[in-house]
């Protein structure tokens, strides 16, 4: 474990996290499927989790704040996925489509 820490510097984690966030962001902005959009959101949340854990482990390993934040994010992500899936199913039942570009009823 100590090796691992010595061998891999912090910025590697941050690069992976950033890459993962960008992939998620792209998925949120560009996918034509609401479920894929939800998955993009999950990716971005996980990119955030990586950052939280990496900063915790490298900068303040003595306290457990980073772990707690990560745990919170996982729970919130799960809840969000559940609500998001329920919304998508509900929308599908009404419009027979889950294409987010066609879902513009909230337009003024």
């Amino acid at each position: 474990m100590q090796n691992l820490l010595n061998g891999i510097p912090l910025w590697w984690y941050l690069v992976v996290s950033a890459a993962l966030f960008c992939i998620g962001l792209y998925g949120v902005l560009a996918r034509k499927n609401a479920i894929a959009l939800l998955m993009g959101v999950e990716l971005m949340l996980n990119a955030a989790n990586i950052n939280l854990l990496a900063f915790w482990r490298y900068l303040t390993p003595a306290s457990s704040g980073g772990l707690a934040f990560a745990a919170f994010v996982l729970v919130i992500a799960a809840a969000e996925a559940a609500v998001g899936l329920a919304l998508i199913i509900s929308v599908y039942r009404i419009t027979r489509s889950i294409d987010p570009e066609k879902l513009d009823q909230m337009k003024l």
Partner: protein
Amino acid sequence: MSHETLTTLLWLAPLPPILAFAVIALFTNRYRQTSSTIAVLAMIASLVMSFIVFFSVWQMKDLGKKPIGGQIGWLPTGETVLNIGVVVDPLGATFLFMVPLACTLIFIYSIGYMSADPRYTRFFAYLSLFAGSMMGLVVSDNLLTLFIFWELMGFCSYSLIGFFYQKPSAYKAAVKAFMTTRVGDMLLLLGMVYLYAQTGTLNFHAILHNEEVLKELAATPAVLGLGISAAGLIAILIFGGTVGKSAQWPLHVWLPDAMEGPTPVSAMIHAATMVSAGIFMLLRFFPLLLAAGEHSAAFTIVGLIGAFTAFLGATIAVAQYDIKRVLAFSTISQLGFMVAAVGIGAYVAAAFHLLTHAFFKALLFLASGSVIHGMEHGHHHVSHAHHSGHEGHSAHGHAPHGEHADPTGDDAHAFDPQDMRNMGGLRARMPITFVTFLIGGLALAGFPFITAGFWSKDEIFADAYYHGLVKGDGLATLVFLVLVASALLTAFYTMRQIAMTFLGQPRTEAAAHATESVPSMTFPLIVLAVFALFIGFINIPKDFPIFGALMGDGAFWLKNFIASMLLEKPEPLAFNIVPVLFSIGVALGGLALGWLVYARHPLQAGQTDPVEKLPVFDFLHHRWYWDELYRKIFINPLQAIADNYSRVVDKGVIDRILEGGYALGARVTQGFAEFDRVVITGFSDAVGRFFRSLGDWGRELQTGQVQNYLLSGLIMVIAILAFFLFLFQ
């Protein structure tokens, strides 16, 4: 009676007629009987108060030095206050006797005389204001309120002369009277302002009974450097007011035309109010004349104008046919007597003649009104008999007066009930009118001993003779000779008038059927006739043979009373038989001449008047052509100037300027419109457009698509991050 009570009565005396005017004008103008009753009762109230005052003060010896009256502060003028007040001094007391008495009789007479007139209540309203103004003028203790009442009378005379305003001649006469007297009023106003500038007060007593003020005025040279003193110039300017109001040459032209008014108005103007006011003021300012110097320009002007007017009026009266116009010129002439008397220093004689003249001239006018009334009745009777069912008789069962211009009364225009050539023989038809007219006429002619006119005229002659032929004053000599000639003419035209009107046989059907007037008209005639006979006895010289002794202590009362106004008492004239003989001679001579020409062989119908054979008849009949002259030298040039002014200045210059201004304004307006369109409207439109497009663009963002919102959120986050990086680097 205490002085306070008398002062209160003085304040109140002018009020009833003025209130009557207001009440009639505002409330009772629909009720004929009520209105005339109010007017007469108000006048009687005024008469009673005036008489109480008069009979309380008439035996006070030093009233002239210590007049009774009161003042109140009225007009703040910076640090001082202009006081107004009332006063009764001997001159005022004499007028307090004469004015309300004559006015009351004229009011009573008017009830009968105006009874057929549709504007009866209006007449009484104006007449009340007229009388109230004169009363106010008499009790005023300062020139300012005197001037206010003076102008009020000007207004009343204008309204009453033009009372029959549907007749063009009436409204023209009203305007003429108003405009002509205005010339004099302007001079008076100048004199008033000058007097105030010099002395700082307008109170009569403070100026005229104050030796210091008078001396200072006499010592100050006049503003224009005319070589006379300020006192002289002020006196001349104030005399200008008298010239206008009392119809002296050259402003005499309005008075004969004032005959267009109803006859009671003529009597008011000629006796109690208007023209008396002018002489009254001149008498008031006599001390100022005296201060200007005994042979000063002021005295000379007053004397010459008076004498000339006396002669002018007398000559014109000889050649008139209108019964009222003869009397009008007679008034001008008699006023000239008074002014001439003032001009030679015969102050008391002037006041005395004014007093007696007021009574007999009021009598003559009212009697002539009665004649006109009778003639109209006669005329109506005749035309009624000739064509029965003739229109134009009033509810009272007789035709309206010819002078009450009846637009539908066709015959009223053809027949002139005032023309003496249409009369004759009225003695039998109208006995009361005849006797009273005869008394008035004899008083006017100065019939010796038994008429008032003789005593007052004799007084003037005595003064003029004494100053002129005894003491050798050239002006007084001239005045004496001119007045003697005028008195001769006066007696002559009076006899002519009496004979043409009352003697001989009727020359028209109307005259043959004339009827005596109603008692409300004859009663005042009788009262006035008594005064015309006996009022002269208040001022008979003590040493006059027989009469002086008969009067005992009462003789010369007026002289002692009124002369107490002056700072120095005039020396009493010794009795001189020469002017008395002249006086008797011209009066009897004139009457005899008139008798020979007119009464011995009265005119027959169709016969021409003997005076027409005189070579100067046309000249006299046309009143020396003064009106024509004024038309040529004043009215026509003024009209030409006015026309040219209208054409050149008004149409040529002012209208051009206005048109140019209009064009300029239009240009400017157009410019503003352009500015408005381009800048203001353009700018606000641009702002609107900008926000509209902004809104349109914002609207585009509102796609309702969650991914677009996310994208814009992302852009915002990047922007904020970039901003903070830039800020905190």
